[in-house]
């Protein structure tokens, strides 16, 4: 592979890592606050749809981002209501939210555009050219600082590690988790909008293609920490770009094997073969008081 090819491969790795970074940081907020987040896929899909539909009607990709954040937040609020208020099992609720997103999206396109498939193609002015890369970079910086250095960031960590201690200190665990979950939905929703208004020019069915789970994998591979998670996203972005590149040519390594690499790495990391990888202590447990 010559130098020019390598640079373009790295550039496309960076581009496809953008939705992963948004979704993984959303997942980080949720999981560090103690709520297992397997619904990232659903948030991404609904964000991709809301972003494309809004950009189509308004001609602005930025308004698309706003709408995607709102859509992701709404879906996350539904999940939060069931998980935090009714104390429904987090895995069951997450599964249902994903099903809901994948059922509602074709319903919306059918009602709006009379097709179960894609939204109309967006003109170039209604799409992003490079802004999302900078947004993702800014998000990484802000998240890393906020998570470690601010009171609210520490509250999120305590909600997932030692909720009793947080409650004793006078901060509401439930409120912290509510806010973390909704922020998670908004971030993942924005990530979704970059799929439809940045990486492609329309929403198409199932366009997330498992990226929500790859983002979750990146989060776990990154040991639930901001900077390692960023690198995991970039690495999984690289495998994705490589897989896209290899699809055209006859390569010795089958494309499918590169596609499953992120999942395989995550299993190996979870099994503790890459050093210690520990989930937040209170992950998956509901909290009854305050």
């Amino acid at each position, binding site marked *: 592979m010559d130098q020019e090819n390598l640079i373009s491969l790295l550039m496309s790795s960076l581009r496809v890592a953008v939705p992963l970074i948004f979704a993984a940081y959303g997942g980080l907020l949720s999981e560090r606050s103690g709520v297992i987040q*397997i619904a990232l896929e659903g948030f991404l899909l609904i964000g991709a749809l809301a972003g494309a539909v809004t950009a189509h009607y308004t001609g602005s990709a930025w308004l698309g981002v706003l709408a995607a954040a709102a859509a992701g937040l709404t879906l996350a609020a539904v999940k939060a209501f069931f998980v935090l208020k009714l104390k429904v099992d987090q895995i069951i609720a997450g*599964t249902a939210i994903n*099903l809901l997103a994948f059922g509602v999206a074709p319903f919306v396109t059918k009602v709006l555009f009379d097709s179960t498939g894609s939204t109309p193609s967006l003109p170039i002015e209604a799409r992003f050219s490079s802004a999302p890369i900078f947004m993702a970079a800014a998000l990484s910086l802000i998240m890393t600082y906020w998570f470690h250095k601010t009171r609210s960031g520490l509250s999120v960590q305590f909600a997932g590690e030692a909720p009793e201690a947080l409650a004793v200190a006078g901060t509401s665990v439930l409120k912290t988790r509510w806010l973390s979950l909704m922020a998670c939905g908004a971030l993942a929703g924005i990530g979704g909008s970059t799929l439809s208004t940045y990486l492609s020019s329309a929403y198409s069915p199932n366009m997330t293609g498992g990226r929500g789970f790859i983002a*979750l994998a990146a989060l*776990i591979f990154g040991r639930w920490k901001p900077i390692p998670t960023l690198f995991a996203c970039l690495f999984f972005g690289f495998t994705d770009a490589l897989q896209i590149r290899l699809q055209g040519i006859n390569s010795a390594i089958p494309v499918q*094997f590169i596609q499953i690499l992120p999942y395989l790495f995550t299993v190996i990391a*979870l099994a*503790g073969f890459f050093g210690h990888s520990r989930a937040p202590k209170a992950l998956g447990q509901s909290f009854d008081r305050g």
Partner: protein
Amino acid sequence: MKMFSSLLRSFLGFSVGLCLALALTALAGENPTHVLSVLLHSSFGSSYDFGLVLFYTTSLIFTGLAVCLPFQAGLFNIGAEGQLTMGALTMAAVGILWPQLGLPWAPLLAVSAGFSVAALWGFIPGWLRASRGSHEVIVTMMFNFIAAGISSYFVVGALKSVESQNPETASVGSGYLFKDFDPLHALSPDSPVNISLVIAIVLAVITWLVLNKSLWGYELKAVGQSPDAASTAGINAKKYKILSMLIAGGFAGLVGMNEILGSAGKFRLGFSPDYGFVGIAVALLARNNPLGIIFSAFLFGALQKGATDLDLETATITRDFAKILQAIIILAVAGFYSVQFLKVKKWIKKT
């Protein structure tokens, strides 16, 4: 009393979920009563319709059991989709590699090979959980994607069909198919329902018996309900967790028997309308009771079939409506199980 309360909650959750989903169709300009009548009639319109519902039911019993058994041991198996993919792929591979084989060895070999590989796909996450503490939810989910990758590799590669443009494997040898000796197939020859339904029901009954009437089942449930007490009593919790996942994987793999030996005769990429995930809903509605799973699998099978018909009979509803129905029913049922009715009564008294 507990049984009655469970039934009531499942019933309420299911009804409320269905009503909410129907209300959603009204928002889109459909007539909810028309939607409901299509849903109700689509399952019983003809022997073909009913056969298709039973075909879905069969697969959902298998995946429902695959969720139920580990749940009783305190584990969440959301990997039934990957397990059934591996089982079905293996059965197709056996049928393509040795096409000359005849009865009775052909189906026996295919089913045991498929069961074993699918069981392995359940065993690994179970073993990782028990021995290394890796969260089974995430590992099984990753295994779903790995299974999807492997199946797509073989379907476009080594097992590829030469005649067809579709992403599917070649056909298995005719000795593998249930058709000739299948009494259920004879009852409804056009529809895909086959003898696997009987096997699924028998398996559900056996699972119920083992869970409720044997020491093995008692110890397995003890591991799930109170791990500390179980270990004090000297029960080997690891063994039960691993075994429950292993057997669950095998059960999910039997979906391949229903699909490949019973009906299609080949592995088609994406043949499963999320059987593995709907299995979670099936087990939830049945409160993880294997006998209840038979009935809740039928309900979800009927909904699946009904949604397909709505696609044809209405302007705005597509077959994906099944997912909305499933999602809302899951949330409503789970919600009703979480709400404590006593609290509601107190609250009503207060206000």
